[in-house]
Structure formats: structure tokens, C-alpha cells
């Protein structure tokens, strides 16, 4: 292989490598939703007062919710 031929091949390889850097690739970061890493929390109805009775807890909260409606409270 002549020196001239070697240079032309080398030039073609270098030009190809340099051009490869000009490609358009998406630059936006893909958002991945994180997973909670902390301690596990108990449910509010698992407290000493409700002892895991979810219905009793919901009923207590419903009553409190309606206590905010004075139209109903004063009738």
C-alpha cells in the first residue's frame, strides 16, 4: 500500500469519525418516576383508637366532614 493510499484511507476514517459526532440525538432526559425510599407508614385506622377498623375511622371522618356544613348543622 502506497503512502498516498494509506493517507486517503486514514483521512476517510477520521472524517467519518468526526462526522459521527454531528448526529442529532434526542437531548431530553427521560423522566423516571422515583420509588419512595423511606420508612413504611401505618394506615390511620391502625391507630390505638380504631384498632384497624377502617369503617369506624371513615364514619368518624364523615361525621367531622359534615360538621363543617353549618347549613346542615343548624337545621
Amino acid at each position, binding site marked *: 500500500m502506497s503512502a498516498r493510499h494509506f493517507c486517503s484511507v486514514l483521512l476517510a476514517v477520521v472524517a467519518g469519525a468526526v462526522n459521527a459526532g454531528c448526529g442529532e440525538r434526542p437531548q431530553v432526559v427521560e423522566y423516571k418516576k422515583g420509588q419512595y425510599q*423511606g420508612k413504611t407508614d401505618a*394506615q*390511620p385506622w391502625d391507630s390505638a383508637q380504631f384498632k384497624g377498623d377502617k369503617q369506624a375511622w371513615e364514619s368518624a371522618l364523615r361525621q*367531622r366532614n359534615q360538621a363543617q*356544613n353549618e347549613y346542615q348543622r343548624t337545621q
Partner: protein
Amino acid sequence: MGRMKFLCDAERCIECNGCATACKSEHEVPWGVNRRRVVTINDGVPGERSISVACMHCADAPCMAVCPTDCFYQTEEGVVLHDKDMCIGCGYCFFACPFGAPQFPNGPAAFGARGKMDKCTFCAGGPEADGSDEEFAKYGRNRLSEGKLPACAEMCATKALLAGDADVISDIYRQRVLRRGKGTDVWGWSTAYGKPQPAVAKANQEGKK
């Protein structure tokens, strides 16, 4: 039970700051941190409006999305809480939140010196054991596990601030709006509390004669 939400009726809020005081007192919130505050628009101008603002417990919370340590979680009732042991005080949540809910006990300081983020917990405490001293010290009282609603809403004298199941408080608000009327029909006292009932109005008129 649906999603837990706050709803502030701007027609009723009288800027008494009772909600902010109740919150501070209930949770012994440190100086410099205001989990709840009252914002007034056009203060001093006729027609000014005030609303009470805290963490809105967003369904798709931006604070959760940006946290680099993933210390946020959402309960089954939709309350957004966080684990203070995981918080590094970076302040990303502060910048992401449109309501300014996340606060830092050491105020504006360099990263690492601000302290752990503190915000409204919907009176649901944190991941520590319910009702424990550790939970109270870090997050304040856990009223939800006692079957109670947030102190701010329960303390509100005019019931401008409503808290609880989103469907229920929306119905309460809808009922108020229907009773008040709208546009030029509402003026003065009736703006907030609705028009007098016909029987009461008649009795008042007869009393004047």
C-alpha cells in the same frame, strides 16, 4: 373514602389567621416555619380577597417528582407526606412547589445548613409510629389517626377553610354557592352566608313597621 383536600372559600375568609395560629399551636411548629398562611389580594382595596394557603396535597405532586432522595410518599387518602430522615435539605421541592409549601427551619441558607424540610401534613403525621413522641417531634400531631380533620379547618370560625374528603367538601361549597346566588345578586352579608330565608325576611320587615 376519596382524596383528602383543602378548599378555601374566598368570600368567607376574613384574614383572621386563626388557621395559621391553630396549625402553629397544634404542631408546635418552630419559628421561621409557616405551614399555613393567609394571602390577601388587593389588601385595603374594596373587594379584597383572602385565602388560606398550605400544601395542597397534589394528586401529581411536583415536590415528589423532583426529590433526589425520593423521600416523599402519598397515603391511600391522597395526603402527601415525607420522611425527614431521608431529607437532605436540598430545596428542590421548595422551588418545584407552586404554593410555597415546603419550608426550611433555618430559612434561606446554604445547602446543608437549611435543615430538614417541613410542610403541612394534613395533620397526618409521618412515617413514625402513630401518636408517638418521635412523630410529634418531627411532624406534629397525627389528628387523622384520631379520626379528626386538620386543626386549621376545624378551628376556622367562618368555616371558610374546609378540609376532608374532596367530594364532600365540594358538595358543601356547591350548596353555599347555590344559596348565595351569583353576580349582582350577591352583596354585603349575603355574599358569604347566603340570602335570608323568606320567613325570616318577612319577620324582619314586619318588625321594622
